[in-house]
């Protein structure tokens, strides 16, 4: 029985003309374009400098900031108001104001003050720019301290703690390494969530559902036949993802491919199950699309794709815990970057199995042969 049903489903998908193309084009498009656009990597921040001191130190500091690659000097203003105007016009993002007597104060051991004003309308840019600028300044400061101490202006009797930072798993702080595995999750979710949601509703709209309802096909058999094709599509999609990640971005998982396939197999079942549940409740294609769209948006926002889950308030963390996307996102990033194995990801494994069982049982139960 299931053999015939599956044959029907595959024919429907293959003869659609549009779907098979979509299965290849969508992941390729997303993986080739997204990682370039979806990046918080911030370079070339436009800097406006107000140098009221015109001393060697103030020039050295400015020079150091510009040579850091992160900042571009786009504006030199005589006073704060002029600099603020340039921010309003969008010509600069951050203002560095060096007060008069900066060098004098510094050399006379009073400590120098400088002012940083960042345009915080683009929150991310403002705060990251500020972080970069502050660390460059503190680097410069260390240099200055060393110079001054050496010239005998001071004695080094104070205890110092030397800090050495190391970035694990992504030493060059490459944003694409972070985004690509997550985008593979997103593609899988969109394709394997949207398509099943469409499939039952389409049968309803076309009236072919009646035929299934009067046939001896059992409820679980019908759902299973709807599920298996998307399961296979999911495997194709994720394999395309692996190829693109390797070919274009040179990314190879630090862990095993087998563990990714294992998790993916469970995850696709979970997300397609959700699609089928929605499909059972929706009356028209439009409704189904909007309900799926609504959930997808919620899932994607609360998955940690863009912003870290750790920074969310408690209530949002709770919602995120019930988000299959979040768990799979953690899995992909951990396996790809850190080389974690399924044992270390036991919590996620259990959660995904739970979702898969829950949604598919619900899908079978919510499918009624009677109207």
């Amino acid at each position, binding site marked *: 029985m299931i053999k015939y049903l599956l044959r029907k489903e595959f024919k429907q998908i293959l003869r659609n003309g549009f779907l098979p193309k979509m299965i290849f084009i969508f992941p390729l498009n997303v993986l080739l374009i997204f990682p370039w656009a979806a990046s918080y990597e911030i370079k070339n921040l436009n800097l406006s400098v107000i140098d009221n001191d015109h001393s060697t130190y103030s020039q050295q500091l400015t020079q150091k900031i510009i040579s850091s690659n992160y900042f571009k000097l786009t504006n030199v203003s005589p006073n704060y108001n002029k600099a603020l105007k340039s921010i309003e016009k969008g010509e600069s993002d951050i203002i560095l104001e060096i007060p008069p007597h900066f060098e004098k104060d510094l050399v006379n051991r009073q400590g120098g003050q400088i*002012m940083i004003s960042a345009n915080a309308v683009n929150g991310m840019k403002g*705060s990251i720019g500020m*972080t970069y600028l502050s660390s460059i300044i503190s680097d410069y400061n260390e240099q200055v301290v060393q110079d*001054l101490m050496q010239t005998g202006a001071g004695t080094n009797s104070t205890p110092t703690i030397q800090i050495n930072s*190391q*970035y694990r798993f992504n030493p060059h702080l490459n944003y694409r390494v972070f985004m690509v595995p997550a985008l593979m999750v997103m593609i899988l979710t969109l394709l394997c969530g949207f398509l099943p949601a469409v499939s039952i509703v389409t049968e309803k709209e076309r009236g072919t559902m009646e035929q299934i309802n009067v046939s001896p096909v059992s409820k679980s058999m019908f759902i299973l036949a709807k599920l298996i094709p998307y399961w296979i599509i999911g495997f194709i999609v994720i394999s395309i993802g692996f190829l693109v990640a390797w070919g274009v971005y040179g990314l190879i998982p630090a862990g095993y491919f087998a563990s990714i396939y294992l998790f993916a197999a469970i995850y696709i079942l979970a997300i397609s199950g959700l699609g089928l549940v929605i499909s059972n409740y929706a009356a028209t*294609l439009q409704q189904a699309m909007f309900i799926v769209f609504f959930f997808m948006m919620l899932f994607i926002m609360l998955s940690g794709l863009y912003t870290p889950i750790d920074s969310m308030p408690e209530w949002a963390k709770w919602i995120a815990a019930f988000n299959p996307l979040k768990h799979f996102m953690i899995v992909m990033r951990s396996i790809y970057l850190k080389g974690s194995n399924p044992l270390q990801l036991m919590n996620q494994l259990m959660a995904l199995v739970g979702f898969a069982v829950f949604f598919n049982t619900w899908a079978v139960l919510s499918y009624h042969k009677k109207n």
Partner: protein
Amino acid sequence: MKQLISFIKKEFYHILRDKTTMMILLLMPIIQIILFGFALTTEVKDTQVAVLVPTNDEASSRIIDKLNASAYFDVVARIHTTDEIQPVFRDAKAKLVVVFEDHFGEKLRHNGTAHIQLLADATDPNAATSFTFYASNIINSYQQELMGENKNPYQITPEVKMLFNPQMKSSFNFVPGVLGMIMLLICAMMTSIAIVREKEMGTMEILLVSPMKPIYIILSKITPYFVLSCVNFATIMLLSVFVLGVPIAGSFMSLVAVSLLYIFVSLSFGLLVSTITNSQQAAMLVSGMGLMIPVMLLSGMMFPIENMPLPLQWLSNIVPAKWYIRAVKAIMIQGLGITSVLKEVGVLCLMGIVLVSISLKKFKVRLE
């Protein structure tokens, strides 16, 4: 005129009777605003930290206490050997490991220097940069304390000011973005689907043979979505001012004017989509692929456009949401007048005119 009114009524019934879609359209902005306003932030908070302390002493425990006391960090684990570092990261127990060297306190007291290593899980590069920065600051502040009277005489202290958004609320950034997205979604996606559905169901034929002029058919189709968009605009404004505390710094009237212009552009985009597609599925995908994804990616709502490769930057210029979001940010957040967004307004006007003329030209009065 009477005809037009009765047609508009018909369209309203279409929408009002599809309760699910209606609910989603009205709820979506509320949920988005709340999520964006409260849940989505990139600030560092309660990052889990593991510490490796080979020798317990006063200095290291003071630093650990300081880290734990700050809002940025939670010290969740203590490990004793370097072999334990990798598993801590792999099991996702901690994102930062602070490694003190052997006899840290002793070395600090006697030799004057001691070493700390900060190992960050850099899977999320920006988070990693931020929390290492904060951790270094905290350690430095301990060092300052130690110096006491002898404090570093050559200290450069940066005084930081965050302009226009002093508390660094992410909502200041996202409210304009959500506005740009919701309006486009409702106007363009919904209108296009509503028109294509009539084609798919065959009722378009009935409309076309009726004495109604095509322009009236279009007008009656877009009126309900126009009204819906206005309702959503009002909801978003109320929520952002009263719940999120994002003030409208500039003139409210210019904000409304720009928004109406944007609604017009979005509606005409929807019209265009409906004239070039024949099935709901296709319309949905064109507006999905052609609108939603570019709006999320290329409008500057989430990711800074300036850092994208040049071809994407050029592409972003044809995304209407980019110009609208820029205008809203200038008026609402920075409090600038309408004169400073003339360029944005001009581009939107141009887009609207081009879109409307193409779609009116392409609107088929006859069935093929």
